């Protein structure tokens, strides 16, 4: 297998370590995604209860349930259903939602876009603050600024997201009145309106991930600064900020990027509570609702897309890390 891939690579990217590494990772990603699809299918079908019973509610009759099960193909064997699903995916189609009879791809795409807006804005706010905060903390390590930063980030880390959300509603909406609530987003909304609606959920999410990112930036920088070659830099008499910026930061970038990517993925697929509180039409709520009524095509599509988001972000992080640090291009 390995030699096959290697031979195939030679024609497209001869002796190019970065491209080879990337293609290698892409192939792995596809295999991983296929594995995930198996897991998702097994998990979704192991859920107790089914769509027929869930959609009919309390007044369901056994005949009606049987008729729905049959019309949805729920009476077919599991393997057949999996193969049919895979076939559909290869055609680039997630099928129709059982509950709404609408194409899953359109609904999911719409909501994914909303979630990307949210995650993107939150990341834009949180990442620079987290990185600068981390640098600042390490610059004044174990002194008052570092202690304050650690204390604040620990407090934020121990606050649940929903509490941050309610506190922000209290302050920004009730007392200051600068933001729109609920944060409903709809088509044809002007950019200022959209931004105003986004403000609350974005701030909440940014604050929630900020602490995590900041702490990992701080610890990554710390572990680099304790190495012997950093000691040498200090003994040479280089200014502290220059040491951090020019020597420590590039070497600490890989673990920090990983934490940022995981937080970003979490922002896209896991902002459910925030979406519920602020009435924001994101992708998390879509999946939760689908699980509740056992709308299997939607649950499976969401599962696959979520997995793809994680895999893609990981891929991106690896590539960025390789770009920043040439040593990583050659597998040990």
């Amino acid at each position, binding site marked *: 297998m390995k030699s096959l891939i290697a031979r195939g690579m030679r024609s497209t990217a001869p002796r190019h370590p970065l491209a080879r590494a990337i293609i290698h990772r892409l192939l792995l990603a596809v295999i991983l995604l296929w594995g995930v699809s198996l897991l998702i299918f097994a998990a979704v079908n192991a859920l107790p209860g089914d769509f027929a019973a869930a959609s009919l509610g309390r*007044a369901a009759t056994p005949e009606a349930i049987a008729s729905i099960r049959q019309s949805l193909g729920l009476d077919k064997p599991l393997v057949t259903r999996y193969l049919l699903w895979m076939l559909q995916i290869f055609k680039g189609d997630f099928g129709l939602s059982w509950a709404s009879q609408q194409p899953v791809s359109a609904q999911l795409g719409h909501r994914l876009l909303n979630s990307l807006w949210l995650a993107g804005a939150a990341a834009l706010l949180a990442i620079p603050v987290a990185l600068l905060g981390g640098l600042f903390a390490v610059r004044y390590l174990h002194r008052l600024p570092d202690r304050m930063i650690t204390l604040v980030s620990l407090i934020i880390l121990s606050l649940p997201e929903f509490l941050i959300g309610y506190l922000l509603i209290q302050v920004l909406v009730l007392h200051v009145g600068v933001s729109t609530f609920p944060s409903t987003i709809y088509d044809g909304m002007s950019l200022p309106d959209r931004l105003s609606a986004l403000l609350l959920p974005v701030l909440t999410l940014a604050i929630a991930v900020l602490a995590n990112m900041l702490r990992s930036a701080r610890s990554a920088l710390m572990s680099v600064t304790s190495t012997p070659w950093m000691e040498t830099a200090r003994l040479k008499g280089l200014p502290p900020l220059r040491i951090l910026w020019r020597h420590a930061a590039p070497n600490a970038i890989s673990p920090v990027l990983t934490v940022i990517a995981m937080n970003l993925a979490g922002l896209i697929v896991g902002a459910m509570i925030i979406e519920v509180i602020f009435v924001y039409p994101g992708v998390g709520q879509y999946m939760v609702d689908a699980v509740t009524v056992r709308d299997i095509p939607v649950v499976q599509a969401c599962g696959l897309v979520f997995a793809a988001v994680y895999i893609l972000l990981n891929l991106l992080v690896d590539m960025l890390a390789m770009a920043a640090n040439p040593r990583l291009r050659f597998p040990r």
Partner: protein
Amino acid sequence: MPNSWNRRDFLKFSLAAGAASGLSFTLPATAADNTPKKGGHLKLGIDGAATTDVLDPASWISSYMMVVGCAWGDTLVRTDPVSGKAIPGLAESWESADKSTRWIFTLRKGVQFHNGQALTAEDVVKTLSRHRDPKFRSGVIAYLSSISTVTSDGDKITITLNESNVDFPLVLSLWNLQIQPGGGYENPNAGIGTGPYRIVKFEAGVYTQLEKNPHDWDSSRGNVASAEVIAINDASSRVAALSTGKVHFISGLSPKIVALLKSGPVTIYNTPGRGHYTLPMMVNTPPFDNNDLRLALKLAIDRQQILDRVLGGYGSLGNDFPVNSAYPLFPADIPQRQYDPDQAAFHFKKSGYSRPIVLDVAEGVFPGAVDAATLFQLSAQKAGIKIDIRRQPDDGYWNNVWRNKPFCVSSWGTRLTQDLIYSLELGPSSASNETHFANPQFASLLKLARAEEDEAKRRTLYHDIALIVRDEGGTLLPVFNNYLNASSNKLQGYIEDVGNDLSNGHVISRVWLNN
């Protein structure tokens, strides 16, 4: 037939009389506040929405879709907000024949759908046919199972039943049975009806925009020019939206928050309803197949405590049968069952059972379900009965626990008639018979009451039915819960309807906004 005066007719008449005599211009300011104001943009924050919602009335089960549906659609029959009796809707009158097995409805003339199409009897026939066809997965199919044929002739619709049912017209007021053009066969999700508002935009689980239908046949409703129904499923967010003035009305207030809101400039609607919480015991499964044990548990629960602590007093005591004073012909003279640890201990001992009783609970069944179970545990302890509470996840509860575990918690919404709630909750052929109750005497009395046209006789029959359920059934019914909603003081004219929550779904078309 039942063309008696109701509140709406009275309002219409007095308004017309007032306008004709010029009185409305000389009324004092306070009285003027009670006359509906036209126009304005109403915003509501309603719970129970999901991204899986669709405009097809067959699929509606939540309060959110009830509010949206009652705004754009109309049913053949409506109900009076005070008495709960059937009043004309799209049918202007009706009569029954052959001992209430044949019903003939006369369709209102000159009604048109939002798309300009005229309403015909054929649309009604097709709508009912679609909801009776299992292929279309209607949530109300079980209520229509007694219909054998539906036919139309001119503006008359004839429905024949396979059994007598004097309450039948009420079934046609179910909010899923909105009349759609062509019965909704072609495009069930079109959202086209004859109702007071037209759908401008519907985004599932997010919001719905509505505008006034200029061709509405009923001029007494629909005061606001447009409305927006925002899906707010989180209880705290709904309160925040009301407090910040982002919405005029919110649904599903938690009893715990009412005290906090009361001090603000809002109106709280505490509407007695027919919804109730139950602890079903399966009468065919040991140890609950023993009536002494069932009686012991019914006596070992402190209902007043649950009403006060779990519902904050916003409700009423249950008496172990699923009917309260919000239903016509409620048997009020049946004594209220009280908490009696001594009697409970006596029956428990008589049952010969001594091990702990397992109770399965999930918080999502009703707000405070786990608290209620814990209170029950404590009150039963005083009677020497040990109850083990087993926590279950909310997800899948109605499939895995309810009707599968012999003793659990459950909750019921409103039903149109005593007959429907008894048939559904305890009926021998019901798929929702949560206690597996199968009492032949109960079944035959229920059938008799359904067909009895004499009101006094029906009252006696329903009295006997209630007694059987109360003393022999597996239903432990501690409380009936009230509907709790709130609005800003700008909103006026909310009618507290006995029929169902949210002014029986008609909140949008009944209220108006003051400046």
